[in-house]
């Protein structure tokens, strides 16, 4: 999942980026509203965290511009004032949730996870595909009730595939949404991660949850929850 963080205070921006990266997200940061607008337009953003008190282009205006350009990714606003008018205006401009500063990072992570899940069309926090269940709150994956040890990146990779069940997802798309800008973007490494994920999910090659479509990409093949 590729996240955009627009926050003018450098320390807070860095903290947010670090914490989100540690949770396995690919994070881009923008220092003001204009830069935020640029990233929002040009990058395949899955969710944006936007501070309302931004220089150059205020947060509310940034959200309105993004929505006017038909950018539909969820937006979480950070506001310094807990005033209801600010919250209402923010959500009316097109944001999906708000968080009042100062906030606990855990709270932020939970809100981000919930927004991403809902944007993918899942109303419940736990996704169940056959024997595989993925809990977006605890970021735990279980197979037949057995917890599975995944790295943060592996978790995001599986989550991305499970958020798009039955869809063919190219390596390029996975790279775009999961890799940090400065990381090695060799698409071959995706193959390596997919291979590891398959081994962990399906050690005896019985479920085959992730299909490979030659030259086109991957597909999460288990039946979606009913």
């Amino acid at each position, binding site marked *: 999942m590729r996240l955009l963080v627009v926050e003018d205070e450098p320390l807070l921006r860095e*903290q947010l980026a670090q914490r989100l990266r540690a949770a396995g997200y690919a994070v881009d940061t923008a220092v003001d509203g204009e830069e935020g607008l640029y990233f929002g337009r040009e990058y395949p953003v899955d969710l944006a965290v936007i501070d309302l008190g931004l220089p150059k282009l205020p947060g509310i205006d940034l959200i309105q511009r993004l929505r006017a350009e038909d950018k539909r990714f969820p937006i979480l606003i950070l506001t310094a*004032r*807990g005033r209801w*008018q600010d919250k209402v205006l923010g*959500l009316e401009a097109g944001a999906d*949730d708000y968080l009042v*500063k*100062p906030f*606990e990072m855990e709270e932020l992570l939970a809100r981000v996870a*919930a927004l991403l899940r809902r944007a993918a069309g899942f109303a419940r926090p736990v996704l169940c595909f056959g024997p595989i269940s993925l809990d977006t709150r605890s970021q735990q994956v279980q197979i037949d009730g057995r917890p599975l040890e995944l790295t943060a990146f592996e978790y995001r990779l599986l989550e991305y595939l499970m958020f798009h069940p039955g869809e063919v997802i190219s390596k390029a798309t996975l790279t775009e949404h999961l890799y940090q800008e400065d990381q090695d973007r060799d698409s071959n490494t995706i193959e390596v991660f997919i291979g590891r994920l398959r081994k962990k999910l399906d050690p005896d090659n019985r479920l085959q949850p992730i299909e490979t479509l030659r030259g086109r990409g991957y597909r999460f093949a288990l039946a979606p929850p009913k």
Partner: protein
Amino acid sequence: MTAPIGEAAGSRREVVSLNRRLLVVAAVVLVAFLGLTGSILDNAFRQSLEQAQQDRLQGTLYTILAAADLTASGLRLPDALPDSRLSTPGSGLYARVIDEHGEIWRSPSLLGLPWEPEQRLAPGDTRFQRELAGDQPLYTLAYGLSWEDAGGKEWTLTVHVAEDLTSYQAQLSAFRRSLWGWLGAASAVLLATQLLVLRWSLLPLRRVAADLRAIEEGRAELLHGRYPAEILGLTQGLNALLSSERRRARRYQETLANLAHSLKTPLAVLRGALDRLPEAPPEALEQIARIDAAVDYQLRRAAAAAPETLAAPLPVKPVLERLLQTLRKAYPDKTLDCELRSSGEPVFYGSEGDLMELLGNLLDNAFKWGRQRLRVSITPLAAGPGGRRGLRLEVEDDGPGIRPEQAQLVLERGRRADEQVPGHGIGLAVVAELVSAFQGTIAVDRGELGGALFRIELPAA
């Protein structure tokens, strides 16, 4: 549980309107002036009528003397008298001549009239007066003269002539009719003119009132009309006051926003830094929470604009709708059945920000604690002397409710923000603060739905 604050006291004395003052004074002056003029004219005309009467009687007297013949046996007049009225009984014109011993001639018109003047005047004297003959008022003229008859005898005569008031009164009443008719018409025209002048002169003031109403209703920002020099100072002053007030309010809100941003962001950084420690010191986290709560409470309290003198009536329902949409978005996993009870089109006299703060915090509380149901009741109350109606807002949920001993703590305003009841943020304290700024009351109860029921009443004005 209830915190009643203040009471708008004040007796209003009815003040006479400018219009009425000017009209009353104009009417009194007009009546006094025209009345005086009328009575002076009336008097002058009566005097001139009497003078004319005297002249006429004098003329009659001379024609009688000219026609008379004095002999030793007495005064003799031709059968055909110079004025035919003297021959006709009851005609209104009478004459009588007396000497030292008594009457020597009387006009035939005197037949039946009890008028026997006995007054004798020295030769050359005249006397004009008004007297009564029986019940008939007469103007009389007496004239004394001495006359030598053909025999050389000296007679001392007094001639009395009289005329009744018929002609005098006819002329006088005709004059009075036209005099008072014209004066009345003139006053009516003058008063009507005065009324028009007044309306025209007071028009700018009425325009000021209309402009103020437009500002109140949010249709205008400033007084826009062009005003005459006399009230230009007032309207310009008002405009300056309005715009400086608006600028001040905007600057104030901006300052608060900046202050919030520059206090809260470092707190967020601090909090984030502590989060990264393997084991964050709990007292540090607690202190941050305290600073945060204090800053939040004070800023939101400061941002509460409180009742505005020129506040447009703000319909409550649209604001409520917007808040509910926001909350549904913010609590996507809560599907509360929200019931709205309201009558008419309730309005709030204050800023949108304040209304959102009042309702938002109560609704947020209900969303937080409610299980399935939420009820909002909006009731307009009776209007006050200024025409502004009071407002009752009730928000009720089916959550666990608030225990009576907690209710006090939750609402008590002015409490240190770091002593809030756990689970109830500073939102409710902010609500209590706002309610007191509006001189209203707030109470917490157990509602029909089983959970907490918050009732706010804002007074009429």
